[in-house]
């Protein structure tokens, strides 16, 4: 041992990995990325993995930033402060809201004209999804009250409903003849929505709902 510290990139890599393992969402995203990739969607899986790594890196950076010297720093101890909740917001004017809504409708009409899984549809949807995630990364787009602590039992009802619905969908998926072979006896939500998404109008309508949901979430 010569006493020299390891290179900075190794330290950054180690802190990113540590921060990632500590965040359940990062781990969940990485698992979804792996399963998405092995189910025949490598590009989608790669994008999810990139977001997971960026989140882990951002967390590691935040942790380094909030670790401040304490009075007993001389003893090698530090104090970590809790991260600020992202409730500060940027204001948006009504004209801008109308412009975003119009742009969303035009996008849905144009992107809906492309066949599903074609490269124009893939590029359009991935581009919009990436833009929304990057926008959301910066914080909510409007001011809102901090909801504070929620009633645990009421929140557990929502969580239970989400998990139960997910398990129901998963059981239908595994009861199919194959992961990528739909079954009429045990239809997944994807199989049930296939007829709707075969027409231009159906795809545009679904995209409009998806975009509206994204705008709602970005404003949360």
């Amino acid at each position, binding site marked *: 041992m010569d006493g020299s510290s390891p290179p900075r990139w190794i330290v950054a890599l180690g802190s990113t990995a540590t921060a990632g393992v500590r965040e359940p969402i990062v781990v969940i995203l990485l698992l979804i990325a792996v399963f998405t990739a092995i189910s025949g969607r490598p590009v989608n899986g790669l994008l999810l993995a990139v977001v997971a790594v960026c*989140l882990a890196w951002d967390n590691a950076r935040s942790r380094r930033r909030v670790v401040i010297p304490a009075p007993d720093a001389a003893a090698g101890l530090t104090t970590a402060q809790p991260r600020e909740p992202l409730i500060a917001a940027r204001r948006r004017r009504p004209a801008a809201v109308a412009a975003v809504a119009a742009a969303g409708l035009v996008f849905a009409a144009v992107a809906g004209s492309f066949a599903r899984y074609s490269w124009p549809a893939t590029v359009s*949807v991935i581009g919009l*999804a990436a833009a929304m995630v990057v926008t*959301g990364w910066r914080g909510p787009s409007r001011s809102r009250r901090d909801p504070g602590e929620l009633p645990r039992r009421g929140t557990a009802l929502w969580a239970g409903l989400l998990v139960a619905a997910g398990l129901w969908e998963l059981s239908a998926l595994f009861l199919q003849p194959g992961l990528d072979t739909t079954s009429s006896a045990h239809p997944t939500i994807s199989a049930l929505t296939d007829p709707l998404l075969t027409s231009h109008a159906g795809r545009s309508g679904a995209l409009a709902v998806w975009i509206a949901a994204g705008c709602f*979430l970005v404003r949360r």
Partner: protein
Amino acid sequence: MSSHDLTVFGYLLFLLAGVVLELLARRTRLRIPSLAAVLARAMRTRTGRVGVLVAWAWLGLHFFAG
């Protein structure tokens, strides 16, 4: 009732349960938060925000992007 009908019935039941929960949250004094409040709570931190947004993005990728 065929297994197809049973599966679809299950999806409709979950959808109905979600609507009922939301109505209970908004129209009664029961201690049930609305879906918007749950999402706002989950999205207080950057990790939560990005996690929820990526779940939304995944839906679009799953149904439209190959």
